[in-house]
């Protein structure tokens, strides 16, 4: 239902946006008749409602239509090609974000007001303040152009080898994940500070449990409950909004498909991409809700 509402809204809003894709596409050709021929061929001359009904009919059959531009590649092909790149980048960026955020958040909480806490806070602010495109360009200049350690651009599918895949993703994943690591680290710190003050942690200490056991087994799972929501949103955002990173590293992921489609007024591509993005958000929200029950069995859906 939500997906259908989103799809309908996008369909009509997109057509309300000014800008004719065919006039722009054939501007240099300077032949208005050619634009009209294409308009008829693509069915864009028909009433909006008819176009909508036709699109919905095709969608129910699993057909998202074809791009208006160039070779008229099916939208489903464009999305299927973009998804592995986006998932790869999002997963690695998320892993980097979590890998930095969880230890940093725990250490900052356990060593409250210490040098480590202040250093973590400072780094978190730095991570939040740095624009991702700037960080991306700095990473390229240092690690690709000067040190020649990692490639500056591009993406290689995992089918061509894990290392080639990974080395193309390290820099973009760091650029995309840094800001989220800062946000999540701050969330974990404050959540941990709340949890370690609670009675059951005091009891665990009184029982003489080891510090690591208290922190990792008893405190962390409870501290993660509010953080999980933020993590879910972060992951969803990484799946759809890393367009700047994708541009800088020349990776055509879902974000770039969407933005390029909007700039070109490529209606079928934008409609298809938004549909998939909305489904990703719905799926991740569902996943987050399920994760709550795993982390805290007291939470039940009734």
């Amino acid at each position, binding site marked *: 239902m939500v997906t259908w509402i989103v799809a309908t809204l996008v369909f009509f809003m997109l057509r309300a946006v000014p800008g004719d894709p065919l006039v722009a596409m054939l*501007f240099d050709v300077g032949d208005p008749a050619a634009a009209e021929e294409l308009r008829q061929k693509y069915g864009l001359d028909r009433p909006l409602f008819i176009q909508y009904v036709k699109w919905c009919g095709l969608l129910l059959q699993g057909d998202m239509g074809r791009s208006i531009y*160039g*070779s008229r590649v099916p939208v489903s092909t464009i999305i299927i090609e973009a998804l592995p790149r986006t998932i790869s980048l999002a997963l690695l960026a998320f892993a980097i974000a979590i890998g930095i955020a969880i230890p940093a958040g725990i250490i900052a909480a356990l060593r409250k007001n210490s040098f480590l806490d202040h250093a973590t806070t400072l780094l978190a602010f730095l991570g939040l303040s740095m624009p991702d495109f700037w960080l991306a360009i700095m990473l390229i200049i240092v690690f690709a152009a000067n040190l020649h350690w990692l490639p*500056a651009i591009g993406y290689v599918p995992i089918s061509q080898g894990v290392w080639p895949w990974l080395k193309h993703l390290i820099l973009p994943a760091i650029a995309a994940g840094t800001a989220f690591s800062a946000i999540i680290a701050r969330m974990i710190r404050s959540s941990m500070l709340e949890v370690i003050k609670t009675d059951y942690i005091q009891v665990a200490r009184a029982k003489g449990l080891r510090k690591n056991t208290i922190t990792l087994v008893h405190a962390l799972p409870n501290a993660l409950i509010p953080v999980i929501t933020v993590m879910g949103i972060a992951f969803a955002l990484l799946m759809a909004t890393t367009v700047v990173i994708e541009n800088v590293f020349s990776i055509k992921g879902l974000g770039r498909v969407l933005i390029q489609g909007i700039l070109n007024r490529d209606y079928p591509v934008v409609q298809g991409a938004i549909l998939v993005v909305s489904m990703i958000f719905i799926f991740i929200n569902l996943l987050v809700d399920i994760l709550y029950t795993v982390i805290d069995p007291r939470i039940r859906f009734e």
Partner: protein
Amino acid sequence: MKIKWLESFQKDQQQKVSAELSDAYDFDPRDPLFGLPRNDLEGPVMSRRAVLRLLAATGALTAWHMLPGTGIRPAAAASGGTLTAGWAGVGEIVTLDPAQINQVLQFQIASNVLSGLTHIDSDLVARGDLAESWQVSADGTQYNFNLREGVTFHNGDKFTADDVLFTYNRSRDPKQSIHSRAISNVKAVEKIDDYTVRFRLKSPQASFLVKSLERASGRAMTIVSRGALAKMDETDYGMAPVGTGPFRVTYHQLGQGVVLEKFDGYYDPERPKLDKVVIKPIIDTEPLAAALEAGDTQLIGGNPVPAELLDRFQSNSDLVVDIVPGPGFQSLWINPWHPHMRVPDFDKPLGDLMKEKGFKVRLAIAKALDRKRYIKQAQFDRGLEAFGTINPAMGFFFDTGINETSNQAFDPEAARRLMAEAGYPDGKGFPALKLLTTPANRRESQVVANILKKNLNIKIELDTKDFPVLIEDFDAMRWDLVRIGSGGDYDPDDGLVDWMQTASKFNGSKRDKSKQAFGFFSEKEVDQLVSEQRVVTDPEARRKMVRKANQITSDKVTCAFLFHPVDALVHHKRVNFPDVSRIPGLVDLDRVTLS
């Protein structure tokens, strides 16, 4: 005004160019063979003189064509290897199907995959590509092409006359091709036998032969494979077209790039030299540079190399930067229907126009544009001040003194005086203007706004819109100022006909015609000069007409001209890019080697 490339011409070269130009234009336009003996128009090889004549006759001869070629350098390296090229300023190569290609950056690739009937090298010698030889009838309306035998498409199909017919029929159908207009003068194409075809034209047309002279990739008569198109849909063919060219497409994914591999069955066993070419589209500027510097790419193709990178590349001893004048102009258009800049009749003598309030404001804006400052700040000192559509790449037609003679010559004092005379002393009482621009041109437009603020104390607000919206607004004359221009202008016609005539395709095509008699400009004398210069045979006479039209459009402020760009080929030193492959508009890689 310093034109470095012109200065670098030796005197004897200048004389040679001058003599060739005179000869190229020395024909009677009524002659169906353009003043050439019939065998001069026939192949297997067509002389430089004949090619220059045909280019002149079709209005496509440019200074770039006249640059002396040095021929093929001895190969600096053995054959083989993989070249990785970054394709600048583009996110994806949306098509390689010649019927759909509408961007230079697309046919730069297609030219390596598909073939035309003949091909022209940088020395302007036309050689048979898929045609081995050709003959022309005495009345210039019939061309017989003898096709090369033993040529195969990448899928193994034999190339025959049927493929030429198939290509023609496909290209003339507007539902299948956006280039149908380009061959509208062809009455019929007949198959004489498997390896001979005859083109019948409605009337003699120099551009027909010129178009077929070029490898013609991305044009109407680029030969496509009927066998492949019977099995592939338009999408698959657009992604990986099957042709008879030196390379075949083995991989193409939108946004990821294109891989070309050597076609072992190419009819010339000596070419291509490279085993593989990997083409990666790169949108952003810094990654484009970093990828080249890191060695991830070795050559830049696609859109023009961003001006801000050229100094950096030139200071890098590992790179070769070859700069030639860019064919185009960029400008600031001023809406003549805006109440404060209104000029409803450009036909009035200049002296009368100078008395009009609206014209004074237009001229003030043009005179206040500090082009040197603009080029330095917005173009990183790469470009030449512009005062008209005729650019330095057109050499023979370019007026090197126009920066002093133009009414638009930079003079901030005079500009302020004009504003005061129009009733806006120190910009007081003048409304804020909206400058329509694209996100990509926003920074440059801001420089324009800053210069006008400084010199005229008027406020310019940027109105940033995506390209499709900007074009709609531009066509409908919904703008105060707009930052737009033209590229690929090799001949005076490209600037004058496309932009300066009342009937220009860009001149407010969707305006409200009941309120606006024309779009951005209309001037009878210019219309007449532009029409006449297209048919005049004497090069000196044509130059005079072109320069006069250019001067009028400059003096009467069709727009405020900003700058002419440069064109740069950048590659690593280990890439041997022979001069013969430096063909305007193309990136032919069949002779390129790696050391």
